[in-house]
C-alpha cells in the first residue's frame, strides 16, 4: 500500500485539518503515518478528507509511477507539493493502459512532423502538414472538430479533467499519446488542445517518454513565453486554428460585411474572426500580429481597451449582436477507450467497477453506453 504518510505529505494539507474533516484523531493519524494498519473505515474517512479514492492509497502501477515522475520533472522542485493534478493525470494514464486493447496498439502518426529549432516557420509548416494529413488538405476552414480529429486520427487519448490550476497537459507514455484539457470557455480549450498537439509533435522525435504541464494561463498568452517550447506550441496552435489563407478570406468578407473603411484592423473584425475560427479574441489578435495584420503590441492594446471599456471582448461582441459562437464538442471519454472497456467487461478481463474508475463514469453510465453498443 502506498503509505499514508506519502499521501498526506503529497496532499500539502495539514494533519490538523485532515483530522477535523475526517473525524479521526490527530494521534491516530500519526499512528498511521508511523505504519499502523487502519481499518477500511478509517482509510475511507482519510480518503474523503483528502478528496481521494481509497484505491489512490493502493494502486501505483509502473506506468502510473513513470508518468508521475515525468510530470513532476517539468516543475521546479519547490512547486511539486500539493499538486493533485499530477496524481490525477498519472492515474488516468495508468488506468487507460488497463482498459486499452493492447492488441490494437496504435502507431502514433507523428513521423511526418519535424521540429528542430522551434521557429515560426516550423510551426507554420507543421500546422499545414497537420491539416494536409488529418483535415483532407483543407488549409482554410475553421477546425472546430479538432477534438474528434485528435481522438480518431491522431490516435491520442483526450481527457477533459477539471483541474483549476492547469490549462492542459500532454504526454507520450509507452508509445501512447495523451492530452489533458481543463474545462473552461470552449474556445480557450480548443486553443489549449492545439497547443498540446504542438508539444506532442515537437517532442515525438526524441523517441523517449515525455510529459509536459501547462499551468493556468500558460497557453494562448497575449505575450509570447520566453520558453522556446511554449512559444512554439502557442505559435503552432495559432497557425493550425487560424491558417493564413483562411484568415485572409474571412477578413475580406468580414470587412465587406461591416463596411470597414480604414486600412487597419479593428476590434470588430477580430471579434468576428475569433467567432468564425472558434478561438478567443486574444488568440485571434495574436495571430493577426504574427501575420503582420496588427502592429507588434496591437493585440494587448486592443484586449486592454475592450476589457476597460466593455468588461471583456465577449461582452463587447454581445453588445453589438454578433452571431453566437459555434458549438465545440469535447467528448467526455475517448470512444476508443470506452469500446475497449465494454469489450473487456464482457470478456471478464476488467471489472465494471474498475472500468468505472478508469473512465471516470458511473457504473450506470457504462451500462448506458453498453445499451447503445448492443442496439
Amino acid at each position: 500500500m502506498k503509505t499514508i504518510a506519502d499521501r498526506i505529505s503529497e496532499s500539502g494539507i495539514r494533519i490538523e485539518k485532515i483530522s477535523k474533516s475526517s473525524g479521526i484523531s490527530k494521534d491516530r493519524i500519526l499512528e498511521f503515518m508511523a505504519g499502523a494498519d487502519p481499518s477500511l473505515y478509517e482509510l475511507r474517512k482519510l480518503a474523503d478528507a483528502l478528496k481521494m479514492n481509497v484505491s489512490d492509497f493502493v494502486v501505483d502501477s509502473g506506468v502510473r509511477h513513470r508518468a508521475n515522475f515525468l510530470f513532476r520533472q517539468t516543475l521546479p522542485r519547490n512547486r511539486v507539493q500539493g499538486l493533485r493534478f499530477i496524481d490525477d493525470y498519472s492515474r488516468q494514464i495508468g488506468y487507460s493502459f488497463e482498459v486499452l486493447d493492447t492488441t490494437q496498439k496504435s502507431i502514433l502518426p507523428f513521423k511526418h512532423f519535424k521540429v528542430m529549432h522551434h521557429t515560426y516557420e516550423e510551426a507554420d509548416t507543421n500546422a499545414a502538414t497537420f491539416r494536409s494529413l488529418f483535415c483532407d488538405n483543407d488549409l482554410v476552414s475553421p477546425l472546430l472538430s479538432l477534438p474528434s480529429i485528435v481522438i480518431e486520427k491522431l490516435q491520442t487519448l483526450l481527457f477533459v479533467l477539471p483541474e483549476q490550476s492547469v490549462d492542459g497537459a500532454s504526454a507520450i507514455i509507452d508509445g501512447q499519446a495523451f492530452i489533458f484539457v481543463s474545462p473552461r470557455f470552449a474556445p480557450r480549450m480548443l486553443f489549449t488542445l492545439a497547443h498540446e498537439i504542438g508539444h506532442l509533435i515537437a517532442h515525438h522525435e526524441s523517441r523517449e517518454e515525455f510529459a509536459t504541464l501547462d499551468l493556468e494561463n500558460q497557453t494562448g498568452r497575449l505575450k509570447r513565453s520566453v520558453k522556446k517550447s511554449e512559444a512554439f506550441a502557442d505559435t503552432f496552435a495559432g497557425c493550425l486554428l487560424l491558417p493564413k489563407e483562411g484568415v485572409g478570406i474571412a477578413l475580406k468578407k468580414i470587412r465587406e460585411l461591416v463596411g470597414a473603411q480604414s486600412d487597419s484592423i479593428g476590434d470588430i473584425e477580430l471579434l468576428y474572426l475569433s467567432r468564425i475560427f472558434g478561438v478567443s479574441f486574444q488568440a485571434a489578435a495574436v495571430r493577426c500580429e504574427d501575420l503582420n495584420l496588427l502592429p507588434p503590441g496591437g493585440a494587448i492594446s486592443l484586449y486592454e481597451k475592450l476589457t476597460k471599456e466593455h468588461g471583456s471582448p465577449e461582452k463587447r461582441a454581445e453588445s453589438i449582436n454578433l452571431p453566437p459562437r459555434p458549438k465545440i464538442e469535447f467528448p467526455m471519454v475517448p470512444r476508443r477507450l470506452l469500446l475497449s472497456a465494454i469489450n473487456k467487461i464482457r470478456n471478464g478481463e476488467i471489472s465494471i467497477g474498475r472500468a468505472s474508475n478508469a473512465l471516470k463514469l458511473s457504473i450506470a453510465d457504462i451500462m448506458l453506453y453498453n445499451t447503445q453498443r448492443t442496439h
Partner: protein
Amino acid sequence: MINLVNGRVFDNVLTLGSDDFFIGSLSYGECKDPYRTKVDQAIANGSLSLLDDSRVSATRFADLLNQYSLGDGETECLLFTTDLGYSMASDDRKARTIAQSQAGESRVTGSLGLLRKAVRAGKLSQQNAMDAYTKMLESGGFLPGIDVNFFT
C-alpha cells in the same frame, strides 16, 4: 443492484425472507441516483443494511485490490466474502470469477441467481423473472444469455 432496480425487482428480491442483504460503504458511495434513492429507501425500511467497514483491515483491502485489480466497491465486497464469511452478489464476470475461486461457487450469486431464488420462493413467476431479465438487458446490463428455463 443496478440490474435489479432496472428490472423493477429490487424490492421483490430484498424481501425474499431467506437472506439478509448488505451493501458496503464503498459500493454505496458508487451509487448515483436513481439507484441511490432505492438503496436509501431499502436501508430505511430495514431490507438492506450497511456493512461495518471498521471490522476489516485496510491493508487486506489493499492486498486484494493489488492482486485482482477490481473496482473499490467490488474489492470491498470480495473482502467481506473472503474474510468474514458473507456471500457475494455481483453481475460482473471478472469479480464473480475471482470470488468463486476464493470463496467457492456456492457463495457467489448475481441478479439472475436471485431472480431464480425469488421464483422458487413463489415471489415471482417465471415469466416475471424473464421480463425482468429482458429489462435488465435493455438497460445495458452485462448478463449472460439465458432462456425462461433458467428460472425453473
